[in-house]
């Protein structure tokens, strides 16, 4: 297992390098100087600007700049936000937990909905339940997250006045009330993201289970007298999960996209809304760092998916 883990990490490293290369190329190809604001600012004398350029190494050959930039990023030296005058890594570390909690709980919600619904629909294909489930799943992933978010605000915040629509990080309450307030304000962002994912996952699960139920080993399991429940949980679902894990991992970039939108609608103070704010304020170091963090998260989740894959399918680990 540990050998498998090391091999997977070794495969993940080049992709991380590749992504950093893509990001850096984008930055380098971009017209104008990302640090040009300083140079154009009349309050900054030209010699100061020139020494700043030298300090940031703007006149070095491009590959040298890439290596420097990468070592800086790896050392955790991510620069300084132009707008909030705080180190970028501090800013991101403040906001990353919120994003991870929102994404994590929405993925759990999506799996809690998609697994039972997808399995139940696939075990009884073309039944009434299956048809309703597939139609709802289709509607679920055709609804853009920004529209669902606005609809939920309209229904639950404005019309019914049950839930707050602006997420507050400093809730004025203690003890149980504190957690209750946090839970209440997380319901809408988590369900917007979770229900969209649930639509996608239900289709994945249903088609994966449909592929498995016809196989001979399922018939064998039934023939030797196992209860239907045991057949479904131990034989069908475990094998159907193998392709689903891959598809979930491939879905991660889309999940982060959804998270950016959701955080922006509900003003959740995560790295997604930080990215939008930084773009609107031309805060280049923050923009690049947040994008890099998103890329790292995608790679990390792919790695986790690979490990799950090895656990679900023992044949892989021994190869």
């Amino acid at each position, binding site marked *: 297992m540990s050998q498998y883990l090391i091999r997977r990490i070794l495969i993940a490293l*080049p*992709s991380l390098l*590749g*992504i950093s290369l*893509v990001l850096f190329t*984008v*930055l380098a190809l*971009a*017209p*104008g100087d990302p640090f040009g604001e300083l140079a154009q600012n009349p309050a900054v004398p030209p010699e100061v600007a020139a020494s700043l350029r030298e300090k940031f190494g703007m006149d070095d050959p491009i590959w040298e700049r890439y290596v420097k930039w990468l070592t800086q990023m790896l050392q955790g030296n991510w620069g300084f936000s132009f707008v909030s005058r705080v180190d970028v890594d501090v800013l991101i570390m403040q906001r990353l937990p919120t994003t991870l909690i929102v994404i994590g709980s929405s993925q759990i919600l999506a799996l809690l909905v998609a697994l039972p619904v997808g399995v139940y629909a696939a075990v009884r294909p073309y039944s009434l339940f299956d048809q309703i489930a597939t139609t709802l799943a*289709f*509607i679920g*992933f*055709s*609804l*853009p*997250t*920004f*529209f669902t978010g*606005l*609809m939920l*605000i*309209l229904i639950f915040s*404005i019309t019914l006045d049950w839930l707050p629509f602006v997420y507050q990080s400093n809730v004025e309450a203690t003890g149980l009330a504190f957690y209750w307030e946090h839970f209440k304000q997380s319901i809408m962002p988590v369900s917007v993201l979770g229900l969209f994912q649930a639509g996608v996952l239900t289709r994945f699960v*249903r*088609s994966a289970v*449909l592929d498995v139920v016809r196989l001979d080993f399922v018939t064998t399991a039934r023939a030797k007298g196992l209860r239907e429940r045991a057949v479904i949980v131990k034989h069908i679902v475990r094998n159907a999960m193998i392709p689903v894990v891959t598809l979930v991992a*491939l879905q*991660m*970039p*889309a999940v*982060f*996209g959804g998270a*950016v*939108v959701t955080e*922006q*609608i509900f003003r959740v103070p995560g790295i997604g809304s930080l*990215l*939008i704010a930084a*773009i*609107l304020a*031309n805060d280049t170091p923050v*923009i*690049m760092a*947040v*994008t890099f963090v*998103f*890329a790292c*998260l*995608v*790679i990390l989740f*792919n790695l986790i998916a690979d490990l799950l894959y090895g656990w679900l399918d023992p044949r892989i680990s021994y190869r």
Partner: protein
Amino acid sequence: MEAWRRFRKHRLAVASAVILFLMIFAVLFGPVLWPVAINDIDFSAMLQGPSWAHPMGTDDLGQDVLARMLYGGRISLAVGLCAMFVAIGLGVLIGAIAGMARGSIDAALMWLTDLFLSLPQLPLLLVLIYLFRDVLKEWAGPELGVLILIIVVIGGLRWMPVARLVRAQFFSLREKEFVEAARALGASQSRQVVRHILPNSLGPVIVAATIDVAVAIIAESTLSFLGLGVPPDIPTWGRILFDAKDYLDFAPHWALFPGAAIFLTVLCINYIGDGLRDALDPRRVI
């Protein structure tokens, strides 16, 4: 035709095709049938709900939402279509090169494909538009420049599934007897690809292309909804939604109509894609 017969059996897909056709018709000829200016400011009719004079109500400047929806729909649909063509073009090109070259070129191209698949799409989209917006504005004018940029960037981040699909098709097709026959008759490699392999690998590509239109429409609307897409004077559906979201409590109609239009278009396109998959890709059961 066999494919058409199979498509017709998918009733929801046929219904979606009709609805989508009606929407395209409305968007193309709507400004003729509903000749109200999109920027006719009327402060006496601000934020009104739907009425006979304004079937979809008015916005905060008293502009007619229906007229803006009809105009913006053209842009939204056109951006979706163009971005799809960019994605399919790139995907077919890269998939075909990888499928024909094999060996190290194939390995390198597939590594690139996997790399692009693990890029965080929306953040990168936002970054690219942020960095390159000003150049294109100077080069092609403020409106056209941003639209071209959005189309190219959305298409440029969506080619990977198509490339994989085309490559897999090429791998199986290039070993088929009819291609071997063409090769034996002395057909050049480009003729083999253009006349024999490519036309036979188009089925799954058409299905992917349909889904890509929906994805591109959502991507453009998302950008506009975040206030980072088209310039404010072009009322695409996402942009109308962006403008409307701060007035949700007293003018919900303003946000509901464009949101519903995006949803309906995407739903219809997805159903058509589903029907086309049944019709063109018979090996896939689901």
